[in-house]
């Protein structure tokens, strides 16, 4: 029928016959409307613009959920974000394109502890950019280290660890070179002068995460009071929960979190990093703070064998990834959609909850939920079509299909 849209002539697509994740529920009988890369309010279109859809697509009862956001991914498909190679840019492009098939529409390329030269060479090559057919959007880098604890270095190389005791924030800035496209910094809050550093980073809109640390609960709480809002891979690389000093884990139920703030925590639900019982304990203690991350490394998406993780060599055997010759876990080869499915199985939570831990919660963590992580009107139209078992069938960025599962299931 003739459309008479007063606001814009751009085509309007109506996705019908689907179940949309909105307001924490899968809503049937609601269609998803998209125009110019954003989710459109069809009632406003009808009454204000007297407009209607140009194209109607039958989604065959698929689940439509916001695209996944991975805030901790070290590489994949042979690409290591902590290696300053000549073709770094094409490496990051490759990963951003490949993870579309895992349902990831935005991510934070993560750099593990590295020498300053690596940061100085690599960071200028990372730019915050929108996603599209070329790949998932880049929200900014996640710098995990080098200001972390020696005792909890995990797979990070000891000779690259640093402190900012001498010059606090200036030391940090000198190490990294530039913070222009940095979104998250993981550090150990027990380090001297961390409060100043946390305040300075928070002032610049950078999310501070606590991890690879031997902090006790009060040190962790103090860090939160200064602005820290995230915990890097809960349980891993921190003191274990103790009933008289719960350590960083205690933040999940701390009563010293400033009013109106929420502490989020990353979890790698690949079945290796955390026992399902521990996953359930964390989830039940603080369900709204759980953020699924992959912590994927270069070997993700490749055959088992040896790969690098920054300055280290890593051995992959099935789903297990260890520093070569040791039993120290180093990242994972899990994909985001596998993590979502595994999380849902292990906790028995609803499909809606599982999907939100990989979309809404990371968006809330980064303060971008007004445009990412939901299917609310006027949000960016980054979304997924999934079947009932939560396998991604198609990925859309800004309303355009950027990946589809082909009929042969490859």
């Amino acid at each position: 029928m003739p459309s008479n849209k007063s606001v814009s002539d751009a085509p309007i697509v109506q996705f019908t016959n689907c179940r949309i994740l909105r307001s924490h529920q899968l809503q049937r009988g609601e269609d998803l409307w998209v125009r110019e890369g954003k989710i459109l309010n069809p009632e406003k279109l009808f009454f204000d613009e007297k407009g209607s859809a140009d194209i109607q697509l039958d989604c065959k009862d698929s689940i439509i959920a916001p695209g996944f956001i991975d805030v901790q991914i070290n590489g994949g498909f042979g690409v290591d974000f902590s290696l300053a190679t000549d073709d770094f840019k094409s490496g990051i492009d490759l990963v951003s394109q490949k993870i579309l098939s895992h349902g990831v529409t935005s991510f934070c390329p993560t750099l593990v502890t590295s020498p300053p030269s690596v940061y100085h060479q690599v960071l200028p090559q990372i730019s915050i950019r929108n996603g599209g057919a070329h790949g998932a959007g880049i929200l900014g880098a996640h710098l995990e280290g080098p200001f972390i604890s020696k005792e909890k270095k995990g797979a990070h190389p000891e000779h690259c660890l640093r402190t900012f005791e001498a010059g606090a924030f200036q030391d940090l800035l000198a190490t990294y070179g530039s913070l222009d496209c940095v979104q998250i910094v993981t550090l150990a809050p027990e380090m001297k002068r961390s409060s100043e550093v946390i305040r300075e980073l928070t002032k610049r809109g950078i999310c501070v995460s606590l991890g690879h640390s031997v902090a006790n609960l009060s040190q962790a709480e103090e860090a939160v009071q200064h602005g820290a809002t995230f915990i890097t891979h809960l349980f891993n690389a921190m003191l274990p929960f103790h009933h008289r000093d719960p350590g960083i884990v205690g933040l999940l139920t701390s009563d010293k979190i400033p009013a109106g703030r929420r502490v989020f925590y990353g979890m790698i639900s690949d079945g290796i990093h955390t026992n399902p019982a521990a996953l359930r304990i964390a989830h039940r203690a603080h369900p709204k703070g759980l953020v699924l991350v992959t912590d994927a490394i270069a070997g993700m998406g490749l055959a088992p064998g040896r790969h690098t993780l920054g300055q280290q060599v890593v051995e992959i055997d099935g789903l297990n990834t260890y520093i070569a010759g040791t039993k120290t876990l180093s990242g994972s080869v899990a994909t985001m959609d596998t993590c979502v499915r595994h999380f849902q199985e292990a906790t028995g939570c609803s499909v809606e909850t599982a999907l939100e831990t990989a979309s809404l919660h990371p968006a809330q963590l980064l303060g971008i939920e007004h445009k990412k992580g939901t299917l609310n009107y006027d949000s960016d139209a980054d979304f997924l079509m999934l079947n009932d078992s939560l396998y991604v069938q198609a990925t859309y960025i800004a309303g355009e299909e950027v990946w589809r599962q082909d009929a042969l299931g490859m």
Partner: protein
Amino acid sequence: MRLVILEDYDQASEWAAKYICNRIIQFKPSQGRYFTLGLPTGNTPLGCYRKLIEYHRNGDLSFKYVKTFNMDEYVGLPRNHPESYHSYMWNNFFKHIDIDPNNAHILDGNAPDLQAECDAFEKKIEAAGGIDLFVGGIGPDGHIAFNEPGSSLSSRTRLKTLAMDTILANAKYFDGDLSKVPTMALTVGVGTVMDAREVMILITGAHKAFALYKAIEEGVNHMWTVSAFQQHPRTIFVCDEDATLELRVKTVKYFKG
């Protein structure tokens, strides 16, 4: 009049929907020759709307060449408020069918000049060639649209203050808080609906029984404004058994035929 008595709410809704559907199909609407439908809101017509949507989904009924005119809208309620009649019509009807948004007319309760808005609505009906079938309901106080007791039976579209009965009946949609219920509305007049070529009034439930009795077994009276339709040449009252509870057995037997 015709009085069509069905056993229960679902059957009454289905009968009404089928009647509307058949009327539209028989009319054979096309480009430049639209079928004009007057539409109600409230609880009663929900079943009828559901059935019409079903017929549309089955491919049996298209609203492409149908123009609609709603009876009323609250004054001062934001258009996207969940209880506005715009929201009601979008969620319960328009979003499920293929009507052209240019052909769906609802009074704007936030217009800067409310009387001008009402006058313009009357003109739009006139420009559309009048209403072929006006579907309405009945209030517990016997009102049609928001033509509250005491409304002139020759009234036109205008601003009306709502009666206490109506405000009380609506409170359940506003969390039971009387202070949140709108007190004024724009409404088509009794005369506006009387101008339609055919009128169908849906009445279901025991709580409407007394109003139905007053509307069809007593005289034409501005205190029970639906009674005006005793003087309309083509009116059908569609009701369920419960709505006939206050009628004389003789009346019911006659119409059950």
